[in-house]
């Protein structure tokens, strides 16, 4: 992983679908928590059990969210691509990843520092509430998708 400085982060944040519609002030608060990260193909963006220090907004590339199952090896739960959001374990204690995140191709993310984000949300409850609504929507979608996969709709 190669973290770079957070200058020029604001326009990138503004363009990311997850943050669309946030005010200039809100984007600038988030820019304080942001840095660009890049990963080569097959790098791990996150590792289950490790401290969850970041939330990743995918700018380019694709990441497979996997879980290790002793008999089946790494099972891909889903893939998250450009415009997607990866990881919420930074939001709730004990702040540890539940899944592995494995770059399927060269990937760039906007990495938002979890600790700074929590502090920014506490300092500005409007921003915190707005972001929580957005994350809740992502949780809802993931839950929905997981149930759908469990239904195994294509099975005869």
């Amino acid at each position, binding site marked *: 992983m190669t973290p770079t400085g957070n200058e020029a982060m604001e326009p990138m944040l503004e363009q990311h679908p997850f943050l669309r519609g946030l005010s200039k002030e809100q984007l600038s608060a988030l820019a304080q928590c942001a840095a660009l990260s890049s990963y080569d193909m097959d790098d791990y963006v996150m590792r289950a059990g490790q401290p969850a220090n970041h939330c990743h907004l995918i700018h380019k590339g*694709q990441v497979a969210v996997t879980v290790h199952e002793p008999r089946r090896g790494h099972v891909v739960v889903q*893939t998250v691509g*450009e415009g997607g959001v990866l990881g919420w374990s930074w939001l709730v204690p004990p702040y540890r990843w539940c899944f592995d995140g494995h770059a399927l191709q060269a990937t760039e993310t906007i990495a938002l520092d979890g600790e700074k984000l929590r502090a920014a949300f506490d300092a500005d409850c409007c921003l915190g509430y707005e972001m929580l609504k957005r994350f809740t929507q992502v949780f809802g979608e993931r839950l929905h998708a997981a149930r*759908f996969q469990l239904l195994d709709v*294509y099975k005869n």
Partner: protein
Amino acid sequence: MPRNATKPEVSSPASADGGAASMAEPMLPAPYRIQRQRREAHDTFTLDLAAADGGRPPRFAPGQFNMLYLFGVGEVAISISGNPGTPETLQHTTRAVGSVTKAMEKLRAGDVIGVRGPFGTHWPTDHARGKDVVFVAGGIGLAPLRPAMYEILRNRAHYNKAVLLYGTRTPSDILFKRELKQWGGNFDVDVYVTVDRATGTWRGNVGVVTQLIRRSPFDPGNCVAMICGPEVMMKYAVDEFRRRGVDSQDIFLSMERNMKCAIGFCGHCQWGPNFVCKDGPVFRHTDIEHLLNVWEI
């Protein structure tokens, strides 16, 4: 737009072309010889058929189906999966699920089956002119959509973007791999494939097909969506299109119900006020919205 706006504009589909079941005798299967049986996936196969009397198969419109009769076993409704631009060979792609389709899977080149049709409404390829076209297919649902894709590619200049979103259970269940590669490779169609379960060396999308709708490149204000797959998948696909602002008038689905006569006589396929065999299988969402969330009618 009238409710039956998707009814075929092709002249009487089982026509004077000869060879196949005439619409004058729509209950009488015409004998067709299997030219080729091709395996598409472990449980899915395509039959290329030619009229046993050497005539041309009747013209069909994308989305229509035939009743295929396996002598001594039974009859099943199967959509036509071939190219409407090359009508001399009739193609059907079937998933072997039960008594008739499993017996049909064992047929080989030279064997004869009975064919009645084509029946039903078709995909709105005319209504889609000048618009983006978004196909959403789940599993075997790609087969009934394939003729519409062929039609759009044949008249590519009349349409804006063409997007295909396709979901299957695993990578080995993906149908028409060669065409998918070709369509995507021509830069004529944006093809996105996803699987529910990744296996082997798969490095593509994993997740449900409806999630692709959210980030795929089409104009919600000027598009037509054509959806075919398991009913639960189609319901969620409609929700995603509606969330993106696509008008219910521009969403079309292909429905399945058990069929017997396929000509609106027996009532076997009745679904609310509709007979799926003649008012469908392709319906405009606005016309069936009230039926989609009813679990027993």
